[in-house]
């Protein structure tokens, strides 16, 4: 029972200067279901690709079933008994479901011309087991997304693998099918198949995994059973964002402090992060009690609205729509359902933009970006309604919403790389009919971002990452919006720039706008949040003020979608 079936030692994979897998040593025991989790970009899929021979490792070894398979070709590894699926199923669309199963080359080219009886029997058995036998004679291109996933699983099981690696098997699968899939996994596991699964859905990990390995930045962070892993402070840091050192300017700007204190049961691990914040704590005028922990802002709301009140007159040119905070939600989404193809990503979510910064948190793949795009009109809503100031804007295109004063800042900033900085900013004012207003706003933006002034005639793509982000903020400000939808503006930026992002976000609020902000770095973002929504698996897990999130354990559970 404790025989290791798959072992990697010091497995390393580099892409240029990026070390995607950094000396990963993972041991998978036979007959277990082994979960691999970790935030986006932590190297999970690369690990799968390197283990199964799709990438050549730059170092380290892979041992499977007692044999060194390092550097083998993918098909050799698959026939040796280590099979895998991909995140996106890719059946042979013109073949029937059953033909897809039979197309598996169990013996390589020696499989021969004739399909042996036992192979047919196995295909029938698997189709029945996976409950897709009723579509056996349909073309695989026509079956549903969930059936595709099951077919993908069935197809690799034709190889009679000893170990199967599944890359996000439940992504985009509805709950009932997900449970069926998990049942099948457990049945197969009972029959002796080992599974290694990458999964973002924590309920899946909690339900079926015997052991869990957590990756972060290409390294193994923690290994253990689910409870011990999710209780580990390092895991929380990886998911919620560590409280990195940042300069005190933001704290002074928004007049709040950020306390970091150990939550119960993980005291030892938080020592370092707590130490990182003494300056902030000293500067604070109103320290929150340390109990419960979490970077919960204390005076954020009051300070924010006070600043907004004073700033709304000063920055009149920026609040072009003449927005004054009135306590009303301006942009409201009700029971929104949307997604891509037949893949439902946002599943009945109601959100409102409020005065100040409304934060949307959630793990990767929880539907945050899609929700924001649905609000902006980039992704059409399948169900539900979006209203702006009481007017139904559900069917609006994004351009129409910009005219109304609802602007979205896409995750990559969406700047025009080949156009100059000046042209980028001017195009931000595309919807502004009055040239004088555009000029005035242009000057306002430049005084907000003096760094851009000397770069006006440079191409936007020649700017540094931080400057590009400034430009995308500045360009968004040129639209004179009253509701800003910001999709992870800090992603891909150096940690030292995150404060700057929050400062600029705050500046939008000061101009009188309402801001909806998606952010991965929950602890940091909580410092400027006035209202919080937490999404998981496309559904709302929590909404309320940051003060309601007093217990970080609750936050972790909400965030990971554990109900």
């Amino acid at each position, binding site marked *: 029972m404790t025989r290791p079936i798959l072992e990697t030692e010091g497995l390393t994979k580099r892409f240029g200067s990026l070390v995607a897998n950094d000396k990963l040593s993972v041991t998978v025991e036979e007959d277990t279901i082994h979960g691999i989790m970790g935030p986006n970009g932590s190297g999970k899929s690369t690990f799968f690709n390197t283990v199964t021979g799709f990438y050549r490792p730059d170092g380290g070894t892979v041992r499977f079933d007692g044999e060194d398979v390092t550097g083998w070709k993918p098909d050799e590894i698959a026939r040796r008994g280590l099979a895998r699926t991909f995140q996106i199923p890719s059946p042979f669309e013109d073949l029937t479901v059953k033909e897809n199963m039979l197309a598996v080359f169990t013996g390589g080219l020696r499989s021969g011309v004739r399909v042996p009886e036992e192979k047919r029997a196995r295909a029938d058995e698997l189709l029945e087991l996976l409950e897709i036998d009723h579509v056996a004679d349909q073309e695989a291109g026509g079956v549903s997304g969930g059936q595709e996933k099951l077919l993908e699983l069935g197809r690799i099981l034709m190889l009679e693998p000893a170990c199967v690696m599944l890359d996000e098997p439940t992504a985009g699968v509805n709950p009932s099918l997900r449970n069926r899939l998990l049942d099948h996994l457990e049945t197969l596991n009972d029959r002796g198949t080992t599974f290694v699964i990458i999964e973002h859905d924590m309920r899946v990990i909690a339900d079926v995994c015997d052991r869990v390995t957590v990756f972060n930045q290409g390294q193994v962070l923690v290994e253990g059973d689910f409870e011990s892993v999710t209780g580990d402070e390092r895991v929380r840091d990886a998911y919620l964002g560590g409280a990195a050192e940042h300069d005190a300017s933001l704290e002074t700007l928004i007049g709040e402090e950020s306390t970091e204190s150990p939550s119960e049961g993980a005291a030892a691990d938080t020592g370092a992060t707590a130490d990182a914040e003494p300056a902030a704590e000293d500067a604070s005028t109103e320290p929150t009690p340390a109990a419960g922990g979490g970077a919960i802002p204390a005076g954020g709301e009051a300070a924010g609205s006070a600043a907004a009140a004073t700033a709304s007159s000063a920055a009149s040119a920026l609040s072009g729509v003449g927005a004054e905070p009135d306590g009303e939600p301006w942009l409201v989404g009700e029971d929104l359902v949307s997604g891509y193809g037949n893949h439902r990503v946002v599943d009945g979510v109601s959100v409102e933009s409020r005065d100040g910064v409304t934060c949307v948190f959630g793990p990767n793949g929880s539907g945050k970006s899609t929700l924001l795009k649905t609000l*902006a009109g*980039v992704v059409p809503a399948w169900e539900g309604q979006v209203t702006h100031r009481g007017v139904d804007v559900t069917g609006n*295109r*994004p*351009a*129409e919403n*910009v*005219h109304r004063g609802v*602007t*979205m*800042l*896409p995750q990559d*900033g*969406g*700047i*025009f*790389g*080949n*156009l100059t900085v000046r*042209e*980028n900013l*001017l*195009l*931000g004012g*595309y*919807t502004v009919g009055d040239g004088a207003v555009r000029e005035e706003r242009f000057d306002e933006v430049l005084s907000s971002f003096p760094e851009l002034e000397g770069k006006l005639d440079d191409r936007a793509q020649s700017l540094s990452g931080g400057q590009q982000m400034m430009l995308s903020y500045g*360009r*968004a400000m*040129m*639209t004179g919006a009253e509701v800003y939808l910001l999709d992870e503006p800090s992603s891909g930026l150096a940690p030292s720039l995150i404060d700057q992002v929050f400062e600029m976000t705050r500046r939008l609020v000061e101009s009188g706008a309402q801001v909806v902000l998606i952010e991965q770095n929950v602890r940091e973002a909580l410092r400027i949040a006035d209202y919080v929504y937490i999404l998981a698996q496309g559904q709302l897990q929590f909404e309320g003020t940051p003060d309601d999130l007093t217990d970080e354990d609750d936050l972790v559970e909400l965030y990971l979608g554990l109900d």
Partner: protein
Amino acid sequence: MLSSFLPDACCREAAAGAPGAADPLGGLAALAGTVDATAAQAVLGISLPSPTIFAQYFVFAVLLGGIYGLVALGLTMIFGVMDVINFAHGALMVVAMYTVLVFSNATGLSPFFAIPFAVVLLFVLGVLIYRSTIAPIIDAPQENQLIVTFGVLLILISGVEMAFGSDPRQLGLELGSLNISGVFVPQGQLYALVIALVALTATWLFLQRTMLGRAIRGTADNRDGAQYVGIDVPRIDALTFGIGAALAGLAGGVIPLFQSFTPALGDQYLINAFVVVVLGGLGSFPGAFVGGLIIGFIQVFGSAYLDGSSYQILIFLAFILVLLVKPEGLLGGSADE
């Protein structure tokens, strides 16, 4: 794909002996041919051309290159903004040629009045074609759009053939030539070049200086980003396709000034225009003109100094060389600058 066009292109060169004949691209190539003949008599036995002859070729090359540049301009614009390869570009030119013919015959006015009319008509036609065929499949794979524009080409060309037949037509315009110290400058081509340069400048100024022009360039650069600043991308697409078609109209409108034409003429220009666009860099405006000049020079000097139509080989050798050395084209980039 291009190689399949080659025989066609060669045939046309073989026919390029008699000026005014129906041969496609006949005007310039044929003129070059006649001059070549007289020059050959003058310099019989001398291997190097006299400075006058050389200057003559140079003028022809520039004139021809300018036309190619103008033809490529609309093509490269539509590609730069929408990533759509517009196969109907040559057909749109043909529509413009016959528009100029009909307009001049009907009104008795100079063809120079017909050209602006053709440009406006082609703009409208372009917008209609965009709305009815491209817009519904703008998010489909590129080959779908390519096939649809190919379908538009067949419809347009067949329509023109049904209405006017496939016999060569001409305006009956005798513009003559200027003689500048022994160098002939055919006035038809000269006007065409001037119009091409004006069109380039005007289009460039429009794209650089106006808000709408910036919006077109912004959309070319980042379609997603464009919608976030309130640019109505489908409208910009319609406008771009309209302008591209109008430029095709301009190119088609000036061609009757110096050569006879048939419904098949558009395709022959289009083949070289594709080479020009790729040579200069997809989506690049100056690239279109640089590429046009290169092809113009290769064609004129090649047909003067090489046997038969070997210059065609030279065109595609240059094409392949550029693709090898600088795959994005000589001035590859986006529609701006």
